[in-house]
């Protein structure tokens, strides 16, 4: 039980990374591969935030002037993940525009058939 208490967030992030990698490696459809990329992104962000957590900590905001600052969580991973979320959505939008263009040229989104049609 104490093992679960300590590592439940790591198990969740770890599971999402593995499922995202499985979708990217095995599936044929291009849009499903892009969905897998999005899930992988979410897993990595969850892992980064759970590394910076301190047990029984509070959020790093001084809402009243005299709050005790001894047990605040680390603010640096939160700044990194804020940037990473916005970059993730930008990459997904660009990948989807390339998928639309590919569909208009080859009339299919199956990666095997596209690879065969080139030769």
């Amino acid at each position, binding site marked *: 039980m104490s093992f679960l208490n300590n590592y439940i967030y790591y198990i969740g992030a770890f599971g999402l990374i593995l499922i995202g990698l499985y979708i990217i490696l095995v599936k044929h459809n291009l849009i499903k591969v892009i969905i897998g990329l999005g899930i992988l992104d979410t897993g990595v962000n969850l892992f980064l935030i759970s590394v910076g957590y301190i047990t029984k900590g509070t959020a790093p*905001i*001084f809402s009243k002037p005299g709050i005790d600052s001894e047990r605040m969580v680390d*603010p640096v991973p939160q700044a990194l993940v804020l940037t990473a979320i916005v*970059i993730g959505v930008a990459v997904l*939008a660009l990948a989807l*525009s390339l998928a639309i*263009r590919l569909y208009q040229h080859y009339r299919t989104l199956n990666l095997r058939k596209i690879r065969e049609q080139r030769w």
Partner: protein
Amino acid sequence: MRRVISILLLIIVALGIRLSLTKIPFGTPKTKVGRYYIEEGIEETGAVNIVTSVVVSYRGFDTLGEVTILFIAAIGLGAVLSTVGEKTVREIEPASLVLYTGCRLLFPLILIFGTYIFIHGHLTPGGGFQGGAIIASGFLLIYLGCRERRISRVASNLAESLGGLAFVVIGLLGLVFGGYFLLNFLPKGTANTLFSAGIIPIIYIAIGFKVGSELAGIIDNLIEES
């Protein structure tokens, strides 16, 4: 065959992550830079929200890089999707009366809420990126509810360019007045009030306009000839 190799690869990755995760304990403080930012944050920058002061003031150059990446993605999407040959004009059926009236009622409220979030970025949780995403959701509601309206391209491009330009100009003014790029040259004021923290609210307003009009422009490019 391909499935067997990929499952083998996943097992190797899983073992590697498992062996290294036991060396990272959960819930203990790990770095010392975080403590420095928490303890010296209010005196040096004046912002009460420590994550905002890290994103805009201590690591402001990384935020400039990230705004550039978003700009490149929006331009790339517009360039790839504009070389399409076929233009099928589809009949747009109007939405029902409840949806039409509800969307027109909700749109100014969503805009005010997004503006509130990025103006108070240095006092409460929030900031430019969150407020910009909420403004883009308001524009998405217009595309789904009142279906024949479109945002004017000129206004959207103007807002985006002015936002990015304002960020770089404020950084260069810091170079002129002080010694280095993105120096905090306005007075810091008393903490916990609206007009405090030097240039941080001004940069977040610029970022909020830029991100909001950029994401709305991405949705407009995708919907265009559909």
